[in-house]
């Protein structure tokens, strides 16, 4: 009965209803879009930065990350590949071999970090080929070719087609040395790394260092940033018996993580303020609507309606409007966010972070961009509807009817 009355009341006062619903709806959409967009942009940055630099997850032998050693190798790469292939959340992975050595071009020499990469996998996982600024990628996996970082090229005064010699120590104790041709120069955006990076095709590196079939690291990217932690745990379980450690980017890129965390905190405050603003907007309209009808409620009381029923009536009306606005808000918000997630807003002037260019800020569709606004609208309208109606319900009808 009350519901029927509530519905009728709502449609009776079209203008008032419209305005109230509009403010709830508007607030909903604004909040949904803002949160979706803010979350999307942040996660976009985190995703791009980790994905294209070191991957989301890395596997090493034991404590290789803290105390690297030539001998801490992952020996059974193929069985790991099987596990990775079977995990649906994993996008791609790339194996790497590391060591240090002395490189020399003509009379200049410098210390370098040797990185053996599987070209195809590396391109897939970290878009390595896109970072090559001069020359080209490796022609095959065992070629006597190297790609050096742009900083190293400068220090050695070397360019594409130059011959470069490296000396290092192989895993069997012999002195590893060989001559290669520089086929490409790479700019990973990390200036410090580029001053010493010396990339070899994986098989060539394994041959140089006498570490056939072994690697030091497997870098993995997940399909979605949100899957990183669950996948890390899954991998840890699958590899529990081996002496391998699986670490997510939060662990191996901890300074980046800290910086991002600080930013996220700022984001929370922004969301809080958005929520506040939206509630205030809703308060405004609902309060006015309810207060306007205090006289009406007085009349109702006078004809015998019980206080409890009045409260229920008011709340019913407010809630119906709220539900309706929320629903509509979700639909429209979803559409907006969907558009924003695929096209995004192009900034007039992109900015760069960690060597990546960000020109488009995209939104993302996630749970909290919907439930936070929904909850806000619901709660605010409920609360603000409650007080005056309580008052009306318990005030003397005569007084209510005189209310203006």
């Amino acid at each position: 009965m009350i519901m029927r009355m509530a519905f009728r009341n709502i449609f009776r006062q079209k203008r008032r209803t419209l305005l109230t619903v509009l403010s709830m709806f508007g607030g909903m959409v604004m909040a949904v879009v803002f949160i979706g967009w803010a979350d999307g942009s942040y996660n976009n940055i985190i995703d791009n930065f980790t994905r294209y630099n070191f991957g989301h997850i890395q596997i090493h032998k034991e404590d290789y990350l803290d105390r690297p050693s030539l001998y801490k190798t992952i020996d059974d790469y193929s069985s790991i590949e099987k596990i990775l292939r079977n995990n649906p959340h994993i996008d791609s992975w790339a194996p790497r071999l590391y060591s240090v050595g002395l490189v020399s071009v003509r009379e200049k020499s410098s210390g370098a970090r040797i990185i053996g990469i599987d070209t195809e996998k590396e391109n897939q996982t970290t878009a390595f080929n896109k970072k090559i600024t001069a020359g080209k990628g490796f022609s095959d996996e065992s070629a006597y070719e190297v790609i050096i970082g742009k900083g190293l090229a400068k220090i050695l005064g070397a360019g594409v087609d130059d011959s470069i010699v490296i000396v290092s120590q192989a895993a069997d104790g012999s002195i590893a040395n060989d001559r290669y041709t520089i086929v490409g120069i790479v700019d990973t955006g990390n200036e410090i790394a580029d001053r010493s990076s010396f990339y070899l095709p994986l098989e060539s590196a394994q041959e140089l260092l006498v570490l056939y079939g072994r690697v030091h690291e497997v870098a993995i990217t997940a399909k979605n940033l949100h899957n990183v932690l669950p996948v890390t745990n899954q991998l840890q379980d699958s590899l529990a018996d081996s002496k391998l450690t699986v670490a997510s980017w939060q662990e191996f890129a901890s300074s980046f993580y800290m910086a991002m965390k600080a930013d996220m905190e700022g984001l929370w405050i922004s969301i809080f303020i958005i929520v506040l603003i939206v509630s205030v907007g809703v308060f405004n309209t609902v309060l006015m609507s309810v207060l306007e009808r205090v006289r009406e409620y007085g009349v109702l009381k006078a004809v015998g309606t019980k206080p409890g029923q009045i409260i229920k009536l008011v709340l019913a009306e407010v809630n119906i409007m709220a539900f309706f606005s929320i629903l509509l808000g979700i639909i429209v918000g979803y559409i907006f966010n969907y558009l924003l997630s695929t096209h995004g807003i192009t900034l007039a002037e992109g900015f760069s972070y960690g060597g990546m260019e960000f020109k488009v800020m995209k939104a993302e569709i996630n749970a909290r961009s919907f439930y936070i606004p929904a909850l806000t609208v619901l709660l605010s309208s409920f609360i603000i509807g409650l007080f005056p109606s309580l008052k009306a319900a318990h005030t003397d009808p005569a007084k209510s009817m005189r209310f203006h």
Partner: protein
Amino acid sequence: MKRALITMSYFIFLCFSLMLATGEPDETQAQRIVKKIDELYRSTSSKALMEMEIITPHWQRTLEIRAWSEGMEKTFMRILEPKKERGMATLRIGNEMWNYLPKTNKVIKIPPSMMMGSWMGSDFTNDDLVKEFTFFNDYDFEMTTVNQAQTGALYVKCIPKENVPVVWGYVLLAVRADDYLPLWEKFYDEEGELVREMLFKEIKRFGQRAIPSVMELIPRQKQGQKTIIRYLEAQFDIALSQDIFSLRNLRAE
């Protein structure tokens, strides 16, 4: 009166000989010992054939090396065996060092940043080969004893002087009492922990000199690791052509 004078001179004589017996003489002995150690493997020039066996927890190798030296300034080493490293050479003149790699036909100058790195994977650093390492100038010494002292051995404690670029807290030397030939050297950090130990064995005669022909360097803080140098042949104070200590010589052979 005469009696008093005699007693007096006796007394003075006693003091005098006591002085001689305690203070100065011991120090001189320590200095003598250290001097001998410093000059043991040095000479105006030398030529030697040696074997370097490197043992690590992951692999074991033995290199055969021919080495020339002139004074403290110049050193030239050529690897003869194993086949993979045959022809590799290292030239050191003063503070500079070059490596030659026959496989790539390349002479690389070692940058100072790599000087502390190990020479060819052994426990000796490039720096060890380069530094004008003198116990004599860089340390202060005193005679000492150790637990489980051997009979016929003398022990010297060497404490590095304040401004010398040396990382050790102190070094203990053990030598043979009769000819001062070294038995071992132990290197301690400043907290008194033994970090490195060098053993000297198998005294052999090379020409006019008798020297320990085997030196074993054992890093105490790494498990299963050591480097052993064996002198197979050695000639001292011979005439050497200056051409040996040249970049061109690196490529020869």
